[in-house]
Structure formats: C-alpha cells, structure tokens
C-alpha cells in the first residue's frame, strides 16, 4: 500500500524518513559492492520490468484479477540488497511521476516495502532455498513481504490517528491476506516459467552463515511470539496503536468493499493491533537478524 502525503502525522513521517535513510544508504553501499557499475542500467531495466509486469492481469476467478508486486521476484533474482535498491527506485518513480505514494511519505513507503518487504521476502528463501522446500519458501517470502508492508502501513496510519474501525481493519487484513496469497502464487508461477527458460536466472543465495542465520531467525520468531504474549497481558503499551481503531459502530453499516458482507466476528481491534505490532516487530527483527547474520558470516569468511 502506497501511503499518500497528508495521511501520516509529522512525527510518524519524519521518524520513518529517519529510519529509511540509513537503511537505504546501507543497502546502497552493499549493493554497490556486490554489483559492478556497468550493471547499473540492468537494475534500472529490471525495475522497469517490474513496473510493466504490474500491468499484467492474473485472473483469479469471479471476474477479478491480481497483480504482481514484485519484491520477492526481485529478491530471488537479484539478491536482497539490489532488490531493495530497485524497489526503492520503483517507489521513487511511482511517487514522483505517478503520484502513487507521497514524497514526504517516501521514507515510510520505502521502509515498508523496499526494506522490510524485501527482507521478509528473502528470509525464507535464504533459509530453505534448496530441494523440496524451495517453492514453499518462495511462496512464504512473497506472502510475508506483502503482509509485512501492509501491517507496517496500517500501524503507521493508526499511529498517525487515522481512524480505522474494527470492521475496516478486519476487512483490510482480510484483503491483505488475499493479496499476500496471490503474490505468493504469482511469484512462484513466474519463477517456474523463468526457470523453464533459463535456470541460472534464479540466484542461489550465498549459503554462508546459514546455521547462524537460522538460529537468529528462530530466535526472532520466538521473541516476537513472546512479545505478543507479554503485550497481551499489558495492553497499555499498545493502546495508542489500537486506540484509533476503537470507534467503528456507525462505519460498519455503511462501508462497502469488494468483499461486502464479509465480517470478522469477534475480531477485536485490540487483537489486530497487537498482531500488527507483533508482526511489525518480527519484520524489524528479521531485517536486523539478516543484517547481523551477514555481518557474522562475512567476519567468518574474511
């Protein structure tokens, strides 16, 4: 979800710009080390490809169609650093040329989709890229990338005081889940068609530090789960996050979506708020562990 300008409160958009800037700078340095300058136009071309690929309709029945987002596809074919850079470039062009996403909100959108989204896409692939688990890993990565981006976006909106009632949140998350599944399915389908053409387009992730990474990822998931459990015992901390989500009675009857009539009974806003926080935390931790893992791996290999 591309957040336009005017939606995020000043502390939120400013903080996200402050978070995105060093992340992107780090990823740019990483990518520049991994890629020769003569390959930079290729990155641009692949960015244009994703842009164009987003125009192609994938029919999913009932007259609707889905579209590829692309973070996972990029992560698997270019590697995570280059993929993040290409996604960032895509978001910049979308914001500037197509007014899809704000300019002050670029930090938020970039962090959500190009940093966290790509990290989430890459992590499962990094862990399980060989043998039978590969396609499920790609699916999971694509799935998580959409979900991570969406959850972060919703969290930022809620923190900014944008009202999203119970029903709205429920429906939104339902939509996000559907989109995430679609992304997973489409990504796997495209990867398969690519491999049929030329197997070496899909990079094998560098396998250094695998054990370390696996351990760190496991720790991250454990931490997030524990975090959510702890938080549910202490709702105060998350009150602000879920605060805006409380008022929904009137909205329920009047809000229509493509999934009109779909209601999540008993899906309390608090639960969603916590889930959002937990997932956001997980993604942030995953990104950090990935970076840490690489650091450790590099130290070992150097």
């Amino acid at each position, binding site marked *: 979800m591309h957040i*336009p*300008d*005017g*939606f995020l409160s000043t502390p939120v958009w400013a903080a996200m710009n402050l978070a995105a800037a060093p992340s*992107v700078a780090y990823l*740019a*340095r990483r*990518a*520049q080390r991994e890629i020769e300058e*003569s*390959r*930079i*136009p*290729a*990155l*641009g*071309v*692949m*960015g*244009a*490809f994703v*842009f*164009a*690929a987003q*125009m*192609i*309709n*994938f*029919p*999913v029945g009932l007259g609707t169609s889905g579209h590829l987002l692309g973070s996972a596809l990029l992560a698997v*074919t270019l590697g995570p650093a280059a993929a993040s*850079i290409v996604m*960032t*470039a895509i978001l*910049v*062009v979308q914001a*500037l*040329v*197509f*007014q*899809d996403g*704000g*300019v*002050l909100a670029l930090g938020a959108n970039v962090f959500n989709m190009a940093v966290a989204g790509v990290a989430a896409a890459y992590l499962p692939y990094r862990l399980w890229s060989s043998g039978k688990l590969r396609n499920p890993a790609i699916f999971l990565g694509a799935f998580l990338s959409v979900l991570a981006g969406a959850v972060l976006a919703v969290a930022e909106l809620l923190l900014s005081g*944008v*009202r999203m*009632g119970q029903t709205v949140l429920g429906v939104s998350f339902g939509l996000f889940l559907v989109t995430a599944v679609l992304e997973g399915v*489409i990504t796997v*389908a*495209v990867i398969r*068609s*690519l491999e*049929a*053409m030329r197997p070496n*387009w899909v990079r094998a992730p560098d396998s250094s530090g695998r054990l370390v990474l696996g351990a760190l990822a496991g720790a991250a998931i454990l931490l997030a789960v524990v975090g959510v459990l702890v938080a549910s015992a202490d709702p105060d901390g998350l009150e602000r996050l879920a605060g805006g989500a409380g*008022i*929904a009675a*009137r*909205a329920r009857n009047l*809000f229509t979506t493509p999934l009109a009539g779909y209601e999540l009974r008993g899906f309390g806003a608090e639960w969603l708020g916590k889930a959002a926080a937990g997932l956001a935390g997980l993604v942030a931790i995953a990104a950090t562990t990935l970076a840490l893992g690489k650091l450790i791996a590099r130290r070992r290999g150097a």
Partner: protein
Amino acid sequence: MHHVVIDRWSRGASPIHAREPRTKLVALAVFLISVATTPGVSPLAGAGYLGVLIAGIALSRLPLGGVLARAAVVLPFSAAFAALNWLAGDPGRAVALVAKSYLSAAAVLLVVATTPLEQFARAMESLGTPRLIALVVQFLYRYLFVVSEQAQHMRVAAACRAPRVPGAGGGLRFRAAAGAVGVLFARSYARAEGIHRAMLARGFEGRFPAVALARPRLPDFLFLLLAAALSLAVRIGVGSA
C-alpha cells in the same frame, strides 16, 4: 499514457522549467512540509495553498485543467479514508486527508512536470540521495517507456487469445499471464545485456561520467524565496486557524 505526457511537459520551456532543479526540490519540500504540518486545513488555508499552486502552474505554461485533473488520481484513495474518518466522528481529519493529499500530489506533479526526471534525480543525489539510487531511477525511467509499451502489447495479445467464456480457462490464463511476465523478464534481461555491450563498445571504463549540475543563480534563489515565503505565509498566516 500518463508518464509520456508528464515527460513531454517536463521538457518544455517556461520560467519554472528554467529554474535550477535543486531550488525547485527545496521549494517543493517547503511547500509539502507546510501543507503536512497545517492542522486541519481550513478552507482559507486550502485556498491559499491552491492559489500558490495555480500561480506556479500558470507560470509554467502547463495546461491548468490538465495538471489539476492529473493530480486528482490520489482522490479515490483519500476519499475512501476520508469517508471512514467522517463516519468515525472526525470530520476535520476527513477534510484534511483529502485536501492535504491532493495539494501535495499537485505540488509534486507541478515540479516533476517542469523538470526532466534525470535532472530531478541528480538534484536528489546532490542533496544526499545515494548515487546508486539516483542512477537506477534514471535508467528505470529511461526504459519504463519501452518496457511498458511491450507489456501493453502483451496484454492486448493475451486478451485477443483469451477464451471468451468467463470462468473457463482461468487456470490457463493464469499460467499464460505467468508466461507473459516470464517473457517480459527474458526480454528485459536481454535488453540489459545489450545495453551492457553497447556501453562497453563505447569505451565504458567502469564509472559513469559525473554530470555537473548548474549552479543556482539569482533568479533561482529569488524563486525559492518567493515559493517558500508564500507557502509559509499560508501556513503561518492562515493555516493555524
């Protein structure tokens, strides 16, 4: 297509087109921050900001209706959220969402429609964006037109060959779509290889030649001063109401 129109506009001529890109970028930032930090956006403030934009559009010799209409692409999204917030008992925010998102989009459009994107990207680099990103943006933009045309052709071709009966062949069409994306990837990859060869053939030595940016001159500073003053005037004078 939208980006084709914007590109053509951006290579026109006007007092705004002639301004140095970095000053335009800074002026844009001042305007956007003014709008973003305006609590609530009263009608007066909205009119004030709109007035500044209209003056800019007029000076840039771009079609007023065209620019204002294209900025409206944000509206469906903001209006939906606005409706939610209105119904949730926060009409002030509802108005703010629509007004701010529209005004911001229009401001961005104005600057991008008067500045060739490669210059905008270089201005960004000069103001701190990592060089790699600025370069990727430029090449992405350069090939956006070519690749999106290809995708358009494929869409049409696929539509011509798709089974007419709704519901039938959905799986087939899904796989066809995946194949189309795959082919697009292959062509893009081949194109990237071709560009690489063309670069080497012309003596690329490992680093893109640095492009020197023009120095901002007095008219540029005056423009920046004026744009910033106007934005802040609205923000402080009327926006705090």
